[in-house]
C-alpha cells in the first residue's frame, strides 16, 4: 500500500495498519491496573465540578476588580488627549482619496494601506470553512449514517416560500448595493458578503437545497473561494515585495473595487457553506 493510499484512508477515518508493520514492539505492554471504584465515578465528577464552580466565582470576582481598576485609569471617553489622536489621521485621511480611490477611508485603509491584515482575515475565513469541511462533510456511507442523528431537513413551508418570493429580490439587491458601494459609503466587502450569504441561506431554507444547487454547486463554491483568496494572495504578495507601505501603482485607485468584490465573494460562500454543512453534511 503506497503512502498516498495510507494518507487517504487516514483522512477518511478508516482503521489503518502502520506503514511498517513488520517491526514488533520491544517488550510486551504491561496490563493496566484497574482503579478501585471506592467512590462512584459520577460522585467524583460532581465533587470536582462543585470545586470548579467555587473557583470560577472567585476568579470572576478577582477579574472584575482588576479590570475595573484598569478601565477607570484609562483616559476619558472622547477626550482630545486620546492616544488615537495622532499623525496617522492626517496622513490617512489627507491622502486617502487620491491614493486609494475610496472615500470611505476605513475601506481604503483595510484594502490598501493595511491590506495585509485583510489578507490574514480572508485566510482565517478560508481555514474555518476547511475545518468545518473536515469535521462535517459526510463523504462515505459510514459518516452519513453517523450524521443522521444530528442533521434533519425541514419540510417545505408554504408561508415561508411566499414571503421569500417577496423578500429575496430586495435582500439580494440590497446586498449587491452594499457590496459595490463599499468604497464610497459605509459597507464594504464583509457586510455586503454577509448580506448576500444570508440571502442564499434564505433561498435554500424556503425553496430547498436543490434549487440552490442549480447555480451554486460544489465546484462553483470551491472555485469562488479559491479565486478570491488567490487574487488576494497575488495582490498582497506584490504589496509586500514593494515594501509593505501601500500598493505603489498608478492603478491602485481603480482596483479597490476588485479587491472588495473578492472579499465579498469569499464571505458569501463562507456563510452559505457553514449553513449547508451544519444542516446537510454536504454542499
Amino acid at each position, binding site marked *: 500500500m503506497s503512502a498516498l493510499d495510507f494518507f487517504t484512508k487516514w483522512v477518511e477515518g478508516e482503521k489503518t495498519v502502520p506503514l511498517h508493520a513488520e517491526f514488533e514492539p520491544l517488550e510486551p505492554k504491561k496490563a493496566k491496573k484497574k482503579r478501585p471504584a471506592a467512590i462512584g465515578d459520577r460522585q467524583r465528577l460532581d465533587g470536582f465540578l462543585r470545586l470548579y464552580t467555587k473557583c470560577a466565582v472567585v476568579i470572576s470576582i478577582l477579574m472584575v476588580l482588576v479590570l475595573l481598576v484598569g478601565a477607570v485609569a*484609562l483616559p476619558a471617553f472622547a477626550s482630545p488627549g486620546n492616544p488615537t489622536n495622532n499623525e496617522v489621521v492626517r496622513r490617512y485621511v489627507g491622502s486617502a482619496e487620491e491614493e486609494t480611490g475610496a472615500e470611505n477611508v476605513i475601506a481604503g485603509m483595510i484594502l490598501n494601506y493595511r491590506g495585509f491584515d485583510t489578507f490574514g482575515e480572508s485566510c482565517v475565513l478560508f481555514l474555518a470553512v476547511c475545518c468545518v469541511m473536515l469535521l462535517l462533510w459526510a463523504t462515505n456511507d459510514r459518516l452519513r449514517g453517523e450524521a443522521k442523528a444530528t442533521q434533519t431537513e425541514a419540510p417545505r413551508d408554504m408561508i415561508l416560500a411566499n414571503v421569500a418570493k417577496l423578500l429575496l429580490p430586495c435582500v439580494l439587491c440590497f446586498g449587491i448595493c452594499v457590496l459595490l458601494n463599499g468604497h464610497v459609503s459605509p459597507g464594504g466587502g464583509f457586510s455586503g458578503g454577509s448580506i448576500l450569504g444570508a440571502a442564499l441561506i434564505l433561498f435554500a431554507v424556503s425553496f430547498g437545497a436543490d434549487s440552490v444547487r442549480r447555480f451554486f454547486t460544489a465546484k462553483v463554491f470551491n472555485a469562488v473561494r479559491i479565486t478570491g483568496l488567490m487574487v488576494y494572495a497575488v495582490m498582497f504578495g506584490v504589496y509586500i515585495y514593494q515594501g509593505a507601505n501601500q500598493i505603489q501603482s498608478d492603478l491602485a485607485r481603480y482596483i479597490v473595487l476588485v479587491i472588495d468584490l473578492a472579499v465579498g465573494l469569499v464571505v458569501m460562500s463562507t456563510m452559505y457553506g457553514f449553513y449547508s454543512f451544519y444542516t446537510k453534511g454536504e454542499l
Partner: protein
Amino acid sequence: MLSLIIDNRFAIAAVILFVTGFANMMLHPNLIKKVVSFNIMDSATFLLLASRGMIAGRTAAILTDGGADPSRYVNPIPAGLVLTGIVVSVSVSAFSLALIQRLYGAYGSVDLRDILEAMKKKGE
C-alpha cells in the same frame, strides 16, 4: 466618583460585559451556552476598541462633501481592528459549533457532565 464612572462609561460597560461572558462560559454546563458566552466576550472587546477611538467633535472617517480635512474625522484604525475581530469571532464560533455537532453525534448529549461521564466509561 460618579464623574469617574461617567467619564469612562463605555470601558466600564465593556468590562462588566466581558466578565459576564467569562463567568457564564465557566459556569454553564451546556456547550452551546458556552459558545454564546464566548460571543458576548467578543462583543465586549469590540465595544472597548470602538469606544477608545472616539474624539470629541469629530465624526466617522467617511469623507463627505466637506473635503479631506483631517481635523474633522476620527482615526480609522480602531474600526479596522474591530472588523478583524468580528471575522475572527465568527470563524471561532463556527468551528466550535461544528465540534459540538460531532460530539453530539458521538455521545448523544450537549451537556458537559454527561459527555465527561460517557468518555470515562468508554475509556475503561
